[in-house]
């Protein structure tokens, strides 16, 4: 086998491709885990976008909702820990009472911001992009402001959710073991994301709620005539979607790491917006797009921490390291322009709805 590999790897040009495939397959189990970890917040943001926009409300405030939830989650945990003590973490997921309450607080904060967005977009019939921008700027300002003020206050030490350890018997199963390890070797929010993607996809296309949502997003006037309450459906979707982006934000501050930093979302909400569009406004598509982006990031990270050897290594040495920084973004553009092309939003996306009787 080795001599076979040696032979094919020696073929000019094509050999480099084989070497890359070999390197890639060796790193896959580690890389896939990284890819899913990086994809979780992006995917949750994208799912929030899908839920909003499928019902006809544009939401560019994903970044702001995430940032607010990240701050609220961390701050609530610190405050609650201060009041009732840290508690003992459960062996699986490291759940404590303050941690669970903090997650709830983060979700409520996200839903409240979404409620503001819904009110502006649906009832006030304001420009939805401006409404989203308001959420982003306000969240950036408010969390940064409070974070700077809190610099002088000493807060109790917090804990975070821990990842599930997949038994080696499972993760060593040939062919699928690494996949199970990557998808489910996560903390509760990470695992929840995988479940939400599947459930959301089924519900959106197979349930009454999904049908109504799509009807309201595509042709609200017709939906109204068959008795669907457009305003209520939109309100429900937008507010519910806030919980999804909030989960993404909470993932950053109370699952992936253990603390809040000003601006720690680092544009993940906007990448989520992009993932939603690349994934053509479907939950599975958004997950795929988020994963594609995260996987490209994982590849560049892998190349930087465990560079390939041999000819491939020599070749990659000649590539500027900044190229690998840009790789995920280049790949997204190429995939969108080359493979996916035109992504068509729900027809009524961004258009405020006015009841005929009211106008």
């Amino acid at each position, binding site marked *: 086998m080795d001599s076979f590999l040696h032979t094919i790897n020696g073929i000019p040009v094509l050999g480099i491709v084989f070497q890359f495939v070999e390197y890639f397959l060796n790193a896959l189990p580690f890389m896939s885990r990284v890819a899913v970890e990086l994809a979780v917040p992006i995917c949750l943001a994208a799912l929030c976008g899908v839920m909003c926009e499928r019902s006809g409300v544009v939401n560019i405030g994903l970044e702001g909702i995430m940032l607010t939830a990240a701050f609220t989650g961390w701050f609530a945990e610190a405050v609650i820990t201060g009041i009732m003590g840290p508690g003992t973490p459960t062996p699986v997921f490291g759940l404590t009472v303050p941690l669970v309450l903090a997650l709830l607080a983060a979700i409520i904060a996200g839903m409240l911001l979404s409620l503001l967005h819904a009110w502006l977009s649906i009832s006030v019939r304001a420009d939805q992009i401006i409404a989203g921008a308001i959420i982003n700027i306000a969240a950036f300002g408010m969390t940064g402001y409070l974070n700077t003020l809190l610099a002088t206050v000493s807060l109790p030490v917090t804990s975070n959710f821990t990842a599930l350890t997949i038994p080696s018997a499972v993760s060593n199963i040939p062919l699928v073991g690494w996949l199970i390890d990557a998808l489910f070797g996560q903390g509760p929010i990470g695992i929840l994301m995988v479940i939400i993607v599947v459930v959301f996809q089924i519900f959106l296309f197979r349930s009454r709620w999904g049908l109504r949502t799509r009807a309201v997003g595509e042709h609200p006037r017709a939906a109204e005539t068959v008795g669907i309450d457009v305003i209520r459906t939109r309100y429900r979707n937008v507010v519910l979607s806030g919980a999804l982006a909030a989960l993404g934000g909470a993932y950053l501050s109370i699952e*992936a790491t253990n*603390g809040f*930093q000003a601006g720690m979302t680092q544009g993940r909400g906007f990448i989520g917006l992009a993932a939603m569009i690349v994934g053509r406004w479907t939950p599975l598509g958004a997950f795929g797009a988020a994963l594609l982006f995260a996987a490209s990031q*994982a590849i560049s990270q892998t190349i930087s*921490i465990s560079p390939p050897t041999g000819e491939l290594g020599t070749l990659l040495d000649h590539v500027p390291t900044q190229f690998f920084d840009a790789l995920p973004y280049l790949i997204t553009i190429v995939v969108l322009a080359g493979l996916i092309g035109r992504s068509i939003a729900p027809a009524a996306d961004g258009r405020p709805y006015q009841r005929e009787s009211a106008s």
Partner: protein
Amino acid sequence: MLTLGVPRVAAMTLVLLVLAACGGSPTTTTNSKWKIALMSATGTLQDHNFSQYSWEGAKKGAADIGAKDPATVVPVDSTDYAKDIQTFVDSGYNLIVTVAFDESGATTTAAKKNPNVKFIGVDQSPICIDTSGNLDTTFGCKGDPKTLLPNYTSLYFQEDQPGYLAGMVAASITKTKHIAAVGGINVVPPVVRYIQGFQLGAQAIDPSVKVDVAYVSTSDFTKAFNDPVAGKVLGSQLISQNHDDVLFQVAGKTGNGVLDAACAANVYAIGVDVDQYLSYPNADPCLVTSAEKHLSNAVEQAIKKVNDGTIAPGDTLFNAANNGIGISPFHGKEGMISAALQAKLTAALNGMKNGSVTTCPAKCGQP
């Protein structure tokens, strides 16, 4: 659209004008002639790290000399540096501390322009000026800052020395013979020096230990120093794929994520710049020590010396010889440090003091 949108915003600008007209500048009274101000690195003051501890030092220094608590400003981006320093000068501040390696240009220019204002720069050496005392943009550095800019002192640290000590600790406690240093970005000289020292220190203990060096980003500063999630993910992969069991973070807040990764995987971590056992208690379970530069103390002493009039202008180096660097106490993990290692650490520290231990390669600070 035209007739409505314009007056709307114009009116608001007007209101600000009116507010400006009726405002008077706030006055304060102190019993010191020094009004101290501090400009942090871009982003935030609360980094549990570099900016924050320089600030702590400035506060202590201010208290020592009976001056008012230092005013602070956080620049939004690098184009703000000159403007924010000027704001300090215009508001009557006469002792200005600037805290980031890339604020050197703005600080040098401001020091030349305002000879009556004292400037303390952290991490900004070498001060590079031409023979007339202006900022030298061709990097000839022919001018002598001690005589040409007597009001500017740059505090800099030999980061390779604490990095070296951290490397010795890491190489001694590793079981897998794989350790890692995670830097934020490879264009910041202090970051590179820490890591170069770390590599040499590890080699000095055990040449068979493999030291992985990874940088979080090579282009994006906010990702490099302000994205703990990126640090966590990178740290986790180093642990799982390269079997590194001691992680040394040199990436600010991104690096706090590296510490989180080590704790989550039950391996060891080494902090940076300040005693992170105190500054980032979340990592206490797995933090062995921190490679420290005594930032807070350096800034405090500099402020006191400005007050005494004994401050030396130009580049002021802090290293083992003047106790400007070190590694933090082990905080309950003393058991991990064998007597032999302790002896070696002491010997290395003494060697640094008398110059017999080399802690940085020839191209020190350059990747």
